[in-house]
């Protein structure tokens, strides 16, 4: 048997994410960005098939901007903790998009747990507006 088969929970999460209009990522248990949907692609400026999948370090580099003083990078530690401890988390940060544009977003990560433990997470996000 192949060892790369995703868990049923992750397959179902991807099915859900593909069919909703909220920008969302599917993360595997190691934090690998396993999929993002069309709504996320509109903000990022690239389709998943063009850039993914990405390890946590890779997507922190590709989609965030470490070292930029005025803008908040991904807090990957909170995501790791969510995947490790199974607790939902909420963050506000800047997303690096095509042409190096920055978009401030809020994101909630929902850990996914099955009979064999935590098998990934679903991260939904939305751009911060003036009303926020």
């Amino acid at each position, binding site marked *: *048997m*192949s060892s*790369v*088969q*995703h*868990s*049923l929970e992750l*397959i*179902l999460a*991807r*099915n*859900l994410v*593909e*069919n909703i209009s909220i920008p969302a990522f599917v993360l595997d248990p190691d934090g690998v960005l396993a*999929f993002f949907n069309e709504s996320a692609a509109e903000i990022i400026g690239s389709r998943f098939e063009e850039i993914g999948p990405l390890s946590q370090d890779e997507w922190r580099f590709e989609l965030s901007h470490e070292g930029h003083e005025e803008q908040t990078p991904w807090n990957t530690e909170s995501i790791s903790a969510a995947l490790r401890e199974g607790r939902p988390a909420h963050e506000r940060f800047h997303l690096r998009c095509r042409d190096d544009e920055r978009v401030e977003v809020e994101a909630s990560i929902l850990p996914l747990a*099955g*009979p*064999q433990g935590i098998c990934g997470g679903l991260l939904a996000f939305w751009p911060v507006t003036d009303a926020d």
Partner: protein
Amino acid sequence: MRVELLGVRGSVPVPGESTARYGGNTACVRTTLSDGTTLILDAGTGIRALDVRPESGEIHILVTHLHLDHIQGLLFFAPFFDSEAEIVVWGPPPETPPLRDMLARYLSSPLSPIEIRELPARVSFRAFPLEGCSIGSATVQAARVLHRGVTLGYRIDDGAASVCYLPDHEPALGKPLASAEDQWISGLALARDASLLIHDGQFSDEAYSAHVGWGHSSVSDALLFALRAEADRVLLFHHDPAHADDRLDALGEWAAEYWDSCGGGPGAVALAQEGRTLDVPGPSTAIEQERQSPSLA
């Protein structure tokens, strides 16, 4: 490994003249391993006809899920009423509530004349370990697959022969199979390179469009799945109770043409037929013994 199809119908038994050739009993498949061990896949009404002797050793029943068409025959399985019989009923996780308690909802009053605790046989009920286990001469693996409710698919490897059993499965839910990557297809790793794949093929493609999300496959999706898995042979299973034999003949012809158009090997696809027995010796060499039904699609 020998495979006997005892019930191939989905949802509800449909006895009668119009279903006599493909059969009206619900899901049950007997596999006999090279060391003689009996593994029974699902316990639909087809299990009633199963003649298995307690003296031949421990009997294992591997239940994919607890929908009634997969457990209804339990109450009519003769070894349950034989105090000499040792039976292990395996089923899907979780451990809580225990499988025994779940099945007791059916094997208890007022649905049943006897209680599960009254079964004379020595019966144990176990959640199947998802890491797999050895039973007799086989290695048995299971994976949770897309269907309504918690559902397992099983794979039995005995020497070079392998049978993958996915009787209720909708791998195309949410996305077309043709474009999905392997790791995102439910059940694909379990079915990889199987000598024989027994797979849900309940709906015609026309009917499927009105039943997306019901947990069952169209014929074309079942065949695409088999091609992606590179299974040697595929039997379409879980026939729609509304489909009489003539309708299934037509579906079988369509399936054979579709399989051929996709580059599948000749004669490698058929509709499952109750009463049929196959010997599955290993990859690419499956030999079929037509014991009751010489003409199949």
